[in-house]
C-alpha cells in the first residue's frame, strides 16, 4: 500500500520543473523554489502528509545555487515519509514559509535562518532562536570557522 502511494506521488505530485527519486527507501522530490508552497499544499491536502517533521539546509559552497533547503514530512495515515528539496542561491536565499500550513514550521524555520541565513518569506517572527542577539554570521555555513566565538560577556583577565 505504501508503494502505491509513492508511485502515485511520483506521477502526480512532481511539478513539471521538478524531479523525483528514491533514496534508501524514501521518496525525494526536488522542486524549484517557486513551486514549493504549492507542492506542500498538495502534499498536505491530497496525499495526507499532516506531520511536518523538519526543515534544514545543506551548504554546497562550490555549487550554484549554493543552498539545498530540505523538508521532511510524515503521513500519519500512510505511515511513510517524504523528502522535499529546493535549491536557492546565495545572493537571494529566500523560500516561502510553511507557517500558514503547519504551526510547527515557525521554530524550525527560525533555526534554519539562524544557522544558514535562509530567509523564509511569510514567517512572522525570524528572531534568532538558538543563537543570541548580536551574533554576526551564520555558523553552519561552510565558510564560518568553527572556533570563531563571539562572547557576550568579556572574559576575566
Amino acid at each position, binding site marked *: 500500500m505504501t508503494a502505491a502511494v509513492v508511485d502515485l506521488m511520483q506521477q502526480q505530485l512532481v511539478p513539471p520543473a521538478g524531479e523525483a527519486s528514491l533514496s534508501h527507501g524514501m521518496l525525494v522530490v526536488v522542486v524549484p523554489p517557486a513551486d514549493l508552497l504549492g507542492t506542500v499544499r498538495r502534499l498536505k491536502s491530497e496525499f495526507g502528509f499532516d506531520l511536518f517533521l523538519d526543515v534544514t539546509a545543506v551548504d554546497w559552497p562550490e555549487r550554484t545555487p549554493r543552498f539545498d533547503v530540505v523538508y521532511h514530512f510524515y503521513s500519519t495515515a500512510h505511515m511513510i515519509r517524504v523528502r522535499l528539496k529546493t535549491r536557492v542561491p546565495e545572493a537571494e536565499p529566500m523560500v516561502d514559509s510553511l507557517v500558514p500550513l503547519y504551526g510547527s514550521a515557525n521554530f524550525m524555520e527560525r533555526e534554519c535562518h539562524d544557522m544558514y541565513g535562509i530567509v523564509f518569506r511569510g514567517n512572522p517572527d525570524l528572531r534568532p532562536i538558538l543563537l543570541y542577539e548580536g551574533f554576526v554570521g551564520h555558523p553552519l555555513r561552510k565558510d*564560518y570557522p568553527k572556533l570563531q566565538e563571539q562572547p557576550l560577556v568579556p*572574559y576575566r583577565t
Partner: protein
Amino acid sequence: MSRPTIPIRPAHAPTPAFEYFSTKKDEFVGWARKFSLFPYPFVTACCAMEFMAVSSTPYDTDRFGAALPRFSPRQSDLLMVVGTLTHKQAPVLLRVYEQMCEPKWVMAFGACATSGGFYQNYAAVAGIDKIIPVDIYVPGCPPRPETVIDAIMKLQDRIAGSRHPIITGSF
C-alpha cells in the same frame, strides 16, 4: 573581573592573644558555614542527571549539610554550575553570581563547566572561570556522585581552613 580581596589589616597590633582569639573564631564560623551550605544549582545540561542522583538516596548530600537548594541567589552561598555554559547563557550566569552575597563559593560541576568539555566551537564557553572565579572544579563527564561528594568535602575543608572576617573587614 577578579574577586575583591579583603586586605588583612588588624585594627590592633597582632598580639598573640588576638591571633589566638581570631583563629578560634574562624574555626567556629568555618565549622558553621561548611556544614550549612545552601547550593544554588545552576543547572544547564547532562550533569543535571548526576546532580539529581547525588541529591537523593543513596548518595545523599544532606549528610554533608548541602541538601537544601535555594533557588534564589540572594539566599544561597554555593553556586554549583552544573553543565555546559554557552555564550548565550553567560550573562545570566554572571548576573546570578553577582546577586549572591558574600561569602559565596563556586563549584564547577562537570567537564564542561571546568574547561568547556569537548565542545570547542563558537557556542560554548571554555570553562566558567572565564566568567566568574571558581573555588572547586569537579571533573567528569558527568562526574560520578562520589566525585561530587568528594568535591563538597574538599570545599568544606577549604571553608574550614579559611579566614572568616565577620565583624570588621579583618576580624
